């Protein structure tokens, strides 16, 4: 990561802990634990991982819908959040003589101007649209909030333009969300995200709730919009095929940590991390002939509770290559050439 301004969004050491009441104690649930990645303008970064690994939390924390526990978020050259910790080369927090982390000044920007630049498309098209609002008002709300129009006619014109962009009929403007199908509702959600003309959109499992034929339509629409408007996506999904199709690069998450980041094709053809390997082997293969020959890597055991994280590498409890070092020290993402970053001691 040579030039900082090359990236649209840069996330460093992002942590998001949620306090959970256990008896009388409050225990931190480490939903996202030290995640770093960067996205270039107009690029799509896919984020995959199993349920509960913190993908959605990463997306929401990026947009500051949750207050990050620690870390630094840089967007478009501006630091929008920085908790102030300093890190050494190994990725550990630098601790001062008194045992407390050395901090520089905390930065906590007002998000309102950035809400115009970064937006989100939600997973559930049924609960993400207010049932008491017409489509026009749903899409118009960001315009209202950021005062992006001067006359009523201009507002209406912009809304109709957006509806056309996502393939909705202009006649539907006065209808309520419950009158639409899942795919159409997701289009409404996308139009709402696009209303402020953002540079970056988090697609939080945006197609997971749709059936396959509609998924294809919506994904193609995402691609068309990217070509037209040059937005960057963080595409969160658990379907590897979908992610591979749309993404330029893919990050694999496990238990709140990023295990591997690589170009989409590179990751698909040349996965390094044992977790990525098993994940890829679980992708259904459409050809039964090939499917019979391929070997499925089945992981043993369950995902550990994020309340009781294993020491060192979070994956070591299920990894067949695990050694003593894995239990002692947590591996950092290291470059294995060509921007293929892997966090593993043994591979």
């Amino acid at each position: 990561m040579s030039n900082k301004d090359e990236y649209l969004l840069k996330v460093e050491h992002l942590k998001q802990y949620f306090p959970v009441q256990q008896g009388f104690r409050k225990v931190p649930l480490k939903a996202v634990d030290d995640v770093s990645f960067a996205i270039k303008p107009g690029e799509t970064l896919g984020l995959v991982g199993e349920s509960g690994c913190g993908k959605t939390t990463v997306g929401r924390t990026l947009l500051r819908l949750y207050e990050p526990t620690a870390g630094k978020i840089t967007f478009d050259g501006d630091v929008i959040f920085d908790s102030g910790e300093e890190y050494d080369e190994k990725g550990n927090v630098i601790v001062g003589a008194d045992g407390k982390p050395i901090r520089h000044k905390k930065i906590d920007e007002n998000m309102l101007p950035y809400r115009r630049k970064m937006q989100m498309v939600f997973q559930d098209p049924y609960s993400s649209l207010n049932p008491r609002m017409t489509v026009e008002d749903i899409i118009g709300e960001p315009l209202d909030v950021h005062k992006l129009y001067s006359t009523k006619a201009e507002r209406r014109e912009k809304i109709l333009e957006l509806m056309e962009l996502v393939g909705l009929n202009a006649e539907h403007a006065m209808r309520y969300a419950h009158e639409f199908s899942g795919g159409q509702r997701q289009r409404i959600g996308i139009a709402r995200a696009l209303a402020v003309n953002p540079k970056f959109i988090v697609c939080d499992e945006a197609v997971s709730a749709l059936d396959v034929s509609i998924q294809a339509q919506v994904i193609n629409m995402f691609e068309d919009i990217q070509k037209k408007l040059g937005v960057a996506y963080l595409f969160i999904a658990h379907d590897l095929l979908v992610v591979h199709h749309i993404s330029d690069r893919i990050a694999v998450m496990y238990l709140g940590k990023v295990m591997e980041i690589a170009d989409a094709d590179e990751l698909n053809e040349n996965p390094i991390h044992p977790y990525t390997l098993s994940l890829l082997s679980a992708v259904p293969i459409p050809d039964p002939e090939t499917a019979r020959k391929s070997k499925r890597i089945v992981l043993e055991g369950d995902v550990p509770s994020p309340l009781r994280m294993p020491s060192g590498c979070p994956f070591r409890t299920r990894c067949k290559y695990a050694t003593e070092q894995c239990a002692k020290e947590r591996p950092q993402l290291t470059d294995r050439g060509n921007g293929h970053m892997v966090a593993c001691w043994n591979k």
Partner: protein
Amino acid sequence: MPSLDKKQFLSAQVDLSKFNDASFEKATDEEKKQQDVMGESTTFFKDGMRRLRKNPFAMGSIVVLALIILIILVAPHICPYSYSQMISVNGCRDKSSANLAPFQYSEMEQDYIEKTGKSLFPHIFGTDSLGRDYFIRVIYGTRVSLSVGIVAALMVLIIGLIYGSIAGYFGGTLDLIMMRIVDIIYSLPDMLIIILLSVVLQETLTPVLKGTVFSKLGANMISMFIVFGLLYWVGMARLIRGQILSIKNNEYVLAARCIGTKSSRILRKHIIPNCLSVIIITTALQVPSAIFTESYLSFLGLGVADPLTSLGSLANEARGALQSYPYRLVIPAVVICLIVLALNLLGDGLRDAFDSKLN
């Protein structure tokens, strides 16, 4: 068309010989339109009102309430008697007019009718022991009771809505503190507080109110409003907090925050419209409960100040002469029953029509 004969007798293969080319022609636009199933776009309120109209009990209640309201608005303009004055004939006080039966005229009135040949407005419900027309007193009593009910319900609504939505939306420690206050108020014995407060407030309010518009209502009435405002909002606040707690977890609220919408706008545009049905229903059900409380407070002698009356105090006055004039108790009691029953049925109807969870 190729002939594809069935190879087996039991095959489920479609027998193509039954079709010709015409069967496979593309549908015209008109035919396609017939397949469009598109209901009329309805709003939440239209939909709810449609369901409400189908409910005979709710519609009956609306008719009854409309009639009662019409009567209490119109009757004082038609009926020449005043609720606070003894009947007088030709400017002369009619001492024989006490305790008249319904539609009975006093001796003086009969004389007057015979002498002048003019007709007098009948005493529909007779007169009370002080010679006041009972019908107009019932009308004014209903006016007072209904307005107490509606004003109290509105006060409960406003306080409960603001308090509940702040506690529910912002949550955390604020919510904890606010709800503990609610718990404390909730645990106080209602009746005791109402009686104590109205006794205390009556004394402090009477000098303050002298000469203002409120003096006619009497300190009792004002203190009753204050009591309702102070005590009965807690139920509403709890209910609204619960609603908001469940609604604020919806993704559309998160989406609104993501857009950068301010909290006040999120509450106004996203959260409150979605718990509106519950709010309307609870408010509708709050009116009869307030009327009820007012009635028995009046019955206990803590109600509105004489000569103004309410349905409860009318019933209380009638108690003494129950054996001789039972209708004086029955009439206000029936009116209370009608109003409370109609409002309860209307509230139930509203709940059935607007509560989306029941649909």
